[in-house]
């Protein structure tokens, strides 16, 4: 069997950042396996700008951003294989991949970084009632067709879900001459970034229907029309509120899910996000030497944080390969308390480098004037006032290590309303 120090699954931003970081820490026997024909991952189709404000202090487009990382990979001579699809991973760190060139290959790795990104929820996932015509596709698929092949999927478009990909596509298709009739969002607030609501919808007078969902898909063979309805507090459609739109395309922008099937199948414990449970170095709790970073762990809105996570994983993997990192039973488990959707990592590792440990989380719903409370074993250790906090932006807090006690019990993140004086 082929042997490698480090195998990286996925050549997107997280995978490339991990490879570069591990290389710079002295591990040079690295193999990146990438399923598609290109490095860069999802950024191949994200031609809009808004990437890299933290990383490079400039606003780049997706392709400009990933090209800088490809250069870093190539400058170091890090080996990568394209059109190489990983089909299996074991807890013992055997990676099986398939490529047209090599056929089916098994590689024994000393460490693995899982960086396989995420996939989109599709129509099956929400069960829209009505016909099953063509013309109903995910926003990311439509983005790939248009931005990689120059093919427009439709001329009269409606979008279900206010996720960022849908918003970006609303603008892109409008500029290409399509008519986007509206965006329906089930929740009473948008799931996209405010700047995208402004620059992708308001700029082009595209209406956003909050607390609305698609209640009917109409068309034999081809999509002809859709019907949307307002929903009540329990998300049930309210009869009599139906609106009909004649469209040839319905884009779905209803959420992204970590593409973690490989680790799931290997029997590695998953968290609330459906990514693996990891510690502060991004190492999975139930399989030492297997690391996870980027959208495969939890869905990110900023590539800068994906890159930072990739680096942590790459550095951790290098330390593990060199025998400097021993899996420990100790560490502080984390929990999502009141108002919090999820917390990453699942375990804080006081031995991890630095004076502070990163805690990343998303809130369950938008709130104003609240404290984010960090408590250990039920005792508050830090309170931070937030004037506004929203689910569409991931929060990162560097929790000083000296506030934590090794035997102080689990760390809970929760929201507490600010008391009015």
């Amino acid at each position, binding site marked *: 069997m082929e042997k490698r120090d480090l195998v990286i699954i996925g050549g997107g931003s997280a995978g490339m950042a991990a490879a570069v970081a591990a290389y710079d820490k002295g591990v040079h026997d690295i193999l990146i396996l990438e399923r598609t*024909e*290109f490095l860069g991952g999802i950024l191949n189709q994200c*031609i*809009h*700008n808004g990437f890299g404000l933290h990383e490079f202090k400039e*606003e780049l*487009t*997706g*392709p*400009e951003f990933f*090209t800088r990382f490809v250069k870093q990979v190539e400058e170091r001579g890090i080996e990568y294989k394209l059109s190489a699809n990983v089909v299996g991973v074991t807890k013992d760190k055997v990676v099986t991949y398939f490529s047209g060139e090599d056929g089916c290959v098994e590689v024994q790795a000393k460490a693995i970084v899982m960086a396989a990104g995420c996939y989109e929820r599709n129509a099956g996932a929400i069960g829209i009632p009505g016909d099953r015509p063509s013309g109903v596709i995910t926003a990311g698929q439509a983005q790939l067709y*248009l*931005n*990689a*092949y*120059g093919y427009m999927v439709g001329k009269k478009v409606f979008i279900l879900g206010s996720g960022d990909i849908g918003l970006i596509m609303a603008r*892109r298709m409008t*500029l*290409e*001459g399509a008519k986007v009739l509206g965006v329906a969002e089930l929740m009473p607030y948008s799931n996209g970034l*405010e*700047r995208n*609501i*402004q*620059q992708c919808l308001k*700029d082009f007078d595209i209406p956003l229907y909050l607390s609305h969902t698609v209640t009917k898909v109409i068309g034999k063979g081809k999509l002809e029309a859709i019907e949307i309805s307002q929903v009540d507090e329990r998300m049930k459609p309210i009869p009599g509120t139906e609106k009909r739109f004649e469209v040839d395309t319905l884009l779905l922008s209803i959420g992204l899910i970590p593409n973690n099937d490989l680790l799931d199948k290997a029997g590695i414990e998953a968290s609330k996000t459906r990514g693996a449970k990891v510690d502060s170095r991004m190492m999975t709790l139930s399989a030492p030497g297997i690391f996870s970073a980027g959208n495969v762990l939890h869905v990110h809105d900023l590539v800068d944080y994906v890159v930072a996570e990739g680096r942590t994983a790459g550095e951790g993997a290098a330390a593990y390969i060199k025998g400097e990192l021993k899996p420990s039973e100790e560490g502080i488990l984390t929990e999502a308390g009141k108002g919090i959707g999820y917390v990453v990592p699942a375990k804080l590792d006081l031995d991890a480098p630095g004076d502070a440990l990163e805690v990343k989380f998303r809130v369950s719903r938008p709130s104003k004037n609240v404290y984010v409370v960090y408590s250990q074993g039920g005792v508050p250790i830090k309170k931070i006032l937030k*004037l*506004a906090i*929203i689910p569409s*932006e991931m929060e990162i807090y560097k929790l000083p290590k000296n506030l934590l006690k090794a035997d102080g019990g689990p760390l809970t993140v929760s929201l507490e309303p600010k008391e009015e004086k």
Partner: protein
Amino acid sequence: MAVELTCIVCPRGCHLHVDDDLNVTGNSCPRGAVYGKQEVSNPVRTLTSTVVVEGSGHLWVCPVKTDVAIPKGKLFDAMKEVNAVKAKVPVHIGDVLLKGIAGTEANLIATREILD
């Protein structure tokens, strides 16, 4: 005419009110005032799109952007010009594919390297 807008400079999303004399209220910090003034007096956007690329065995189109932001009102005029542009391999990031797009100072530049 007074305008209401949401500041997009940071996640707080303050609701700005900009009056006829470009006085901004509702902002919680100075950055909001700068944004509000610019947005009402001369809103500008960076246009990103794709153009056909000839001679590549892997890609049909090449992503492009305007090298500086252009007035919002010129976006559709600029798109008409973008759609007539063709690139030829090899393409490098920053290659100028069209000068002075839609009568502005901005150039259309390639944002991807396509060598073959």
